[in-house]
């Protein structure tokens, strides 16, 4: 079993896939909820985006190389190993109730990467999503016919969210796929973004066709502490401590609690981070990287003799997190919602999917990009990990469909 999934005497596994009824989303500290609520309302009344930028002049940004050593990118091998545990019964059963199992994750849970890695490890075939043109022309059988290639090899479909479009012609291909999976006996592991899952539950009756999905258990403050500490150790192996820039309190102490010790209470910063990020590791990691500051030169000289290097963490209240630029704009709402429901979209498709005035889609994309809420990767515009909590809050406040994650 992977080291990061191992348990100490008192702690649950770091990576754990659970059914929806066992999923626990970490709550934001009450003080933070009130602060965000009041500040958010105040910013709405003033008609401008929330700003909370208070730079600590003495601290400097980490250069990219140092940042990659201190907080390297997540390694999705560990959750792939955890998926083995969650799927053990299903894999061992020769005639399971459903030959298809879904894994659902919100942005930042790394679901598609985990499933792709898992497929490669187990020799399952990765079935890539169709192109938008194939989705919008469901009579074109080229993509669905490929499903019958190599019929003995089990399948992994890592991105179900890329197999449909919220368009009157965009559901038929997905329905055909689901019918084939439901009727067949071939094993299939399906990864689906939580937003697409929430939509397709109604639009394609996913709940009726598939058993309850698995989802990565949310990272609470304890899990985040263990994970961020492990990431820092993985970077270059150097001993590091992470301290709050405001009061010097430890965010990550020099070493985690030993197996026989009761774990200490997590720092307030980590409780904020867990709640704000919805417990999504990718979101928490992105915010964490943006919080790290280097030691001032004079302090660095003073600590040269110390065993562990100190990295400073910006106080939570001083973080400059992305916010909705113009909360009154309906166009921003529709564009953000469409991007989330499809796990990102190419810009030209916005005009096909949304009844916006000409040019309004591009204007909204530009506005959201300037606000650091979205970014373009691999030809798709996606909500950034740091912008996800603000986007989720905005859409939920307006009463539109949101997932529970």
């Amino acid at each position, binding site marked *: 079993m992977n080291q990061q999934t191992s348990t100490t005497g008192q702690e649950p596994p770091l990576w754990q896939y659970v059914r929806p009824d066992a999923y626990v989303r970490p709550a934001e500290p009450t003080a933070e909820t009130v602060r965000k609520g009041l500040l958010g*309302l105040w910013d*709405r*009344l003033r*008609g401008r985006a929330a700003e909370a930028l208070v730079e600590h002049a003495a601290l400097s940004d980490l250069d990219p190389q140092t940042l990659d050593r201190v907080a390297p990118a997540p390694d999705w091998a560990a959750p792939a190993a955890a998926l083995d545990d969650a799927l053990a019964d299903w894999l061992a059963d020769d005639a399971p109730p459903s030959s298809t199992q879904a894994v659902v994750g919100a942005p930042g849970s790394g679901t598609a990467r985990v499933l792709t890695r898992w497929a490669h490890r187990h020799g399952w075939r990765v079935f890539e999503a169709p192109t938008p043109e194939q989705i919008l022309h469901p009579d074109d059988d080229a993509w669905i016919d490929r499903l019958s290639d190599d019929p003995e090899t089990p399948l992994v479909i890592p991105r179900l969210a890329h197999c449909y479009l*919220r*368009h*009157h012609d*965009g*559901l*038929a291909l997905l329905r055909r796929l689901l019918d084939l999976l439901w009727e067949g006996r071939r094993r299939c592991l399906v990864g689906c973004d939580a937003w697409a899952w929430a*939509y397709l539950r*109604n*639009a394609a009756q996913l709940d009726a066709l598939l058993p309850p999905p698995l989802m990565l258990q949310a990272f609470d403050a304890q899990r985040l502490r263990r994970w961020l500490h492990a990431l820092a150790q993985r970077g270059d192996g150097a001993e590091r401590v992470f301290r709050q820039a405001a009061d010097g309190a430890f965010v990550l102490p020099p070493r985690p609690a030993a197996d026989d010790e009761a774990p200490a209470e997590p720092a307030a910063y980590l409780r904020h981070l867990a709640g704000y990020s919805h417990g999504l590791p990718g979101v928490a990691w992105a915010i964490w990287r943006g919080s790290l500051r280097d030691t001032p030169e004079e302090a660095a000289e003073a600590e040269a003799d110390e065993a562990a290097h100190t990295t400073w963490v910006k106080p939570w209240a001083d973080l400059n997190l992305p916010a909705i630029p113009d*909360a*009154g704009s*309906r166009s921003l709402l*529709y564009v953000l*919602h*469409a991007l989330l429901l499809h796990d990102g979209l190419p810009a030209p498709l916005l005009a096909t*999917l*949304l*009844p916006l005035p000409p040019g309004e889609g591009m204007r909204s994309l530009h506005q959201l990009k300037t606000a650091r809420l979205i970014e373009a990767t691999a030809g798709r515009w996606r909500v950034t990990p740091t912008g996800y909590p603000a986007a989720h809050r905005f859409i939920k*406040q*307006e*009463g*539109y*469909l949101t997932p529970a994650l």
Partner: protein
Amino acid sequence: MNDAKDAAQILKDFDQIGFVQIALIVIGAWVLVRLVEKVFPWLGSKVPGRMRLFVLSLVPVLRLVVMIAGIALVVPQVINPTVQNLVAILGAAGLALGFAFKDYASSLVAGVVAIYEKPYRPGDWVRIDGAYGEVQSLGLRALRLVTPDDTVVVIPHMKIWDTNVYNDNDGQRDLLCVADFYLHPAHDAAVVRRRLYDVALTSPYLQPERPVNVIAAEKPWGTHYRLKAYPVDGRDQFLFTTDLTVRGKAVLARLGAAPAVPPAVEAS
């Protein structure tokens, strides 16, 4: 002689009446009412959509509270506040209003009743006496309705005594919208029904937690389809219906379903 004495006892002596206090109370109440009428609708446009109707519904209640408080403060300045005096004053005032301003008084009373019975609230989409639109504000005497053509209609509250009030959303954010399609009878109705269902399911305005229905009815001139669904926000009802109509027409055209032909009218 006794009557004159009683009247003198009801009203305070002229030099005991606090005219300055009365003026301050009236001005204060007026300023407060104006503030409520200006600030809360503005606040309603700024808060998240889910809170809008709640904020708007506070306006008539707060105005009523301010006005009752104002009257309660002014009356003791003018009369000796005993039960008999109050009954006498209210009776006289009621009689005067009943004769001179019957309809006005009826609308005032209906306005108070409307606050409690809630046949309409700010933000509701209502039809009263042939006028359809969103209730923008509830005044003391009348409500202001804004039609889809941006025309303001002022309707006295007394209409609730003898007129049916059709309220589309009744305090909820979403309201049922219907897009109509009229087709020539020669088509595959099952396919049309399925495709229209998808048209509603894929609208960005749709409230997916409410049902979508396609109702078909055969008529002498063709088939009438009614696509019924709820938008998330009632303010989007015309955008929603337009979206359903535009995309529905495109789907039906691709299916080859011809529009219904109106029955010929014989020349007399």
